[in-house]
Every structure is written in C-alpha cells, then in structure tokens.
C-alpha cells in the first residue's frame, strides 16, 4: 500500500506538489471512496474460453479470491464493477462484449485475461474471425499475459487494479473537468 509514498520518494526534493483541489476534506473523501471501490470489485460472470476455467480456479478454495472480497460474481452487468475478459473474443462476440460493457454502471474496469485478449494470442495468424486484442473493442485497465494465465496471475492483476483505483480522483476529477 506504500506505492504512493514510494513514488514521492523517487521525485526530486525540490518538487512542488500541486495541492489537491478541494483541500483536505475532498482528498480524504476520495480516499474513502477509493478504498471502498478497490476493496469491493465485483466481477461479471463472463468467460468465453480456457481462461474462464482459470478464473473459476481463482475462485476455488485453493486460491480463494473471496479473501479480497471479489467472490460476489454478478451475472448481470448492472451490478458488476469489473469485467474480466477471460478468453478469445471473436467478431461475432465483439458487439456483445461492447454492449455488456455499456450496460455496466460507472465506474467500471476491465481486465484482459490471457494472450487472446491482448493480441489474439495463438489465434493471431491465419484466422479470419478473431478480434486481435480486446482493446479494439473496450478500454482495458490491466493486461495479464499467459495462455491461460495462472490464477495467481489473475489475483495479481486484481491487486494491481486495486492499486490503480486507489490513485483515482473522484471529487478532484470533477473539478479538473470543469477547469
């Protein structure tokens, strides 16, 4: 959890940090919201192929992603925060994936799990129906390489996503947008 501080340490001593717009209250609220959001990532039940089995493995007793509070897998996109694209996306599936992503309420996150979702993976050459990377369809937050990635890799990706969320501005962003 100390990455924030680590980053500050790396910067040169004379660095002038711009104060967070809104001051202490808003910053603290941001922290609370981000804490809640990062610790309550409910994934959408969405698996297209092999990686879905590793996703199921991540839920099982050995890897047990419920430790982090991820086990509330929702079957409806309306209640999910996170879409783990586990498996190849083909041309026929791409509109469906886009639709699912659109149906999710903000804030929403995407993890591209496996080589297929990064670039088409093993199905890159000589295929006529595979989407070469899921980021052609929806924006991706975290990529996990592997064919399929191990459950530990998925857990790592989700923890990485938690880190990412912890640095997100919520109130501050709204201010920046109006500027």
């Amino acid at each position, binding site marked *: 959890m100390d990455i924030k501080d680590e980053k500050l340490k790396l910067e040169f001593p004379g660095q002038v940090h711009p104060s967070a717009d809104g001051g202490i209250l808003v910053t603290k609220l941001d922290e*609370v*919201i981000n*804490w*809640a*959001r990062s*610790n*309550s990532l*409910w994934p959408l039940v969405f698996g297209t192929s092999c990686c879905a089995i590793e996703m199921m493995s991540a839920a*099982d*007793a050995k890897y*047990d992603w*419920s*430790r*982090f*509070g991820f*086990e*509330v897998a*929702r*079957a*409806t996109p*309306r*209640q999910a*925060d996170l879409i783990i694209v586990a498996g190849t996306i083909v041309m026929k599936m791409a509109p469906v994936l886009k639709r699912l992503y659109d149906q999710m*309420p*903000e*804030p929403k996150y995407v993890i591209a799990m496996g080589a297929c979702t990064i670039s088409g993976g093993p199905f890159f050459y000589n295929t006529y129906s595979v989407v070469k990377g899921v980021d052609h369809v929806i924006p991706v937050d975290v990529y996990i390489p592997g064919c399929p990635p191990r459950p530990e890799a998925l857990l790592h990706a989700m923890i990485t996503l938690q880190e990412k969320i912890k640095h997100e501005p*919520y109130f501050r962003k709204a201010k920046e947008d109006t500027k």
Partner: protein
Amino acid sequence: MKLLLAYSFANLTSAIHSGLSGSMGNETLVLITEMVITGICLLGFLVILSFFLGYMERKVAAFMQIRLGPNRVGPKGSLQIVADTVKLLFKEGLTPDASDKFLFNLAPFIVVVTSMLVMAPMAFAKGFQIWDLNIGILYVSSISSMGVIGILMAGWSSNNKYSLLGAMRSGAQIVSYELSIGLSLISIVILTGSLRISDIVMSQQNGWWLFKGHIPVIISFIIFIIASTAEINRAPFDLAEAESELTAGFHTEYSGMKFAMFLLSEYINLFVVSAIAATIFLGGWMPFHIGSWEGFNHIMDYIPSSLWFFGKTFFIIFVIMWFRWTFPRLRVDQLLNLEWKYLLPISMVNILLVTLIAIMGWHF
C-alpha cells in the same frame, strides 16, 4: 452485578419518556420526538445488522466451502461489507431507458420499508419493544407479505424479460407460502389465546412452545422454517433471483444503491423471519425454563434476555444460511407442488391437532 443483570430496558425507556415530558410538556410532541428517536435508532440498528449478516453470510459460506472468506479488508475482513456498501453508494444508479421510471425507482423503497415496518412489534429483550400492539402476529404476517408488491413492481417496470419472470415467480411463491406461514403462526395463537407478541413470550415462561406443544408444534415449526425461507426468497427457494436461470431475477436491471436496497431488505427479512420463529416457537427473549424447576430457571435468568433473543435468532439465521449453501434450487412447479400438495394440507391437519391439544389442555 446482580443489579446490572436484572436491569430492564423498561427503566431506560420510561426514564427517556419522563425526561422528555418534563422538558416539553406537550404529549403529542413527546410522542413524535420519541418516534423519531426510535426510527433513527432502528435505522442504525438495521444497517449494522445487515452489515453483520452480510459478513456472517460470507463467512458461513466460506466455512461450508472449505475456504477462508473475506480477510483482507479490516480485521478478519470485517469491513468488507462496509466497503461494498460505500462502493454501491457511490456507484452509478442506472435507470434503463425503456423502464417505467417512477415504479422502477419506487420499488426498492417499498421493499425496504415493508421489511423495516415488521420490526415494530419485535421484542428484542425484556421490556424492549417498539410497539407492543395487540394484533402483533397479524400485523407481522400482513405487512411482511406486502414486500411482494415491491418485487412485482421492480420486475414489471424493469422492462426486462428475466426480471418479469423473476417477479412472477416471486409473486406466485409468496402468495402460496403465505398460507403456510399464517397457519403455522395460528397454531401458536390457538395455544396462547393472544395475538400480542408480549403475551406470546410471557406464555412461554414455563417452557418454550417448541417443547411444550408436543409434535404438532414441532411440525408447525418446521413448516414455518421452510415456508419462511421461501417467503424471503432464499435458496433453495430463490427462484425469483435464480442466478443460473434468470441471471439476477427481478433485480437484474438494478444497480448501485437501488440494488443495495434489495440486499438490505433481504437481510432484514432474514432477520425478521428468524426473529419471529425465535419469538413464537423458542420463547423470544424468554430464557430456557423448565416447568417448575425453580433453581434451574433462576440460573437461566442470569443470562440477559437480549442475549437469549439474539442467540436464538442467529441460530435460526445460521440454519437458513446452511440451507442456502447446501441445497440445490427447486424448479418452479416443484416449488408450488411442495406448498399446495404437501405443506398446506399438513398444516391444515396440524391446526386441528393443535386445537385438540389446546382444548384438552394436553400441553404443559
């Protein structure tokens, strides 16, 4: 020490009442103030309760499923539900474009409000009751069946076929199981001769009805547990939100806080039915007494009444959770078969037996 144990909540409430009367004077004003205080306390209690139940559910699930359950957020994962709730609060609450927007937004409130209303006649401890009305049981069973209106509204207004199917299932389910619940409650009403919750609790001074009432009461207790599990839409009767069939059933289109309300009402309902079962069949806050064993009864009285109440309630909650994590789900026609072909005839015959026991005075 003895003073502390014998302390009754009645003292506290009367102290507040006299304090308020002293400062305000106007009876109506005092009543309103007291109501507001009670409401706020109840809301706080319900929120904490649903946090706890959510946490308990996930931990019980983990226990059944040989895993650990939440353990990263807060000590032993206890803040997991808080994080979930805060997240849901700040999540976008979508209203689908093609939905009936008024009903869609109203439905979760109806569901929550009805389940909160049932808390009114609950006797949490000796002398600790919000409203000891004389038709307590009737009130509980009539109010609790109103929640289905909210569910039907949610399902219909979502303009989603899964929601509609879920709501229809829920409607059929609650309307049928309401009968069994009513009949099993009536069996105790017959024995007690009163609908007032406090009378029912007091009638179990020399032993809980479950033990006093012979086999018929045990049968109605089992029927009550089955039927109330169905009434609150929990597995194995969770057809209204059957995840593997209807994705999320009637709340498929709900997101953010509106969805959290459904979750909240689910947990409140779970608590309510368990509390009723504990009150009616297991003596509510009444300690475990055996007939005329004065010494034993006296020792039991040392355990605070609220502990008795919550202990019993949470035991029943645990049993209902146990159901959820072990049984497969019924099919919709089997669900109705179970009610109309088995539970209802059994409870009707049971009523006769209970009446016989009551008339002949065979109970202890």
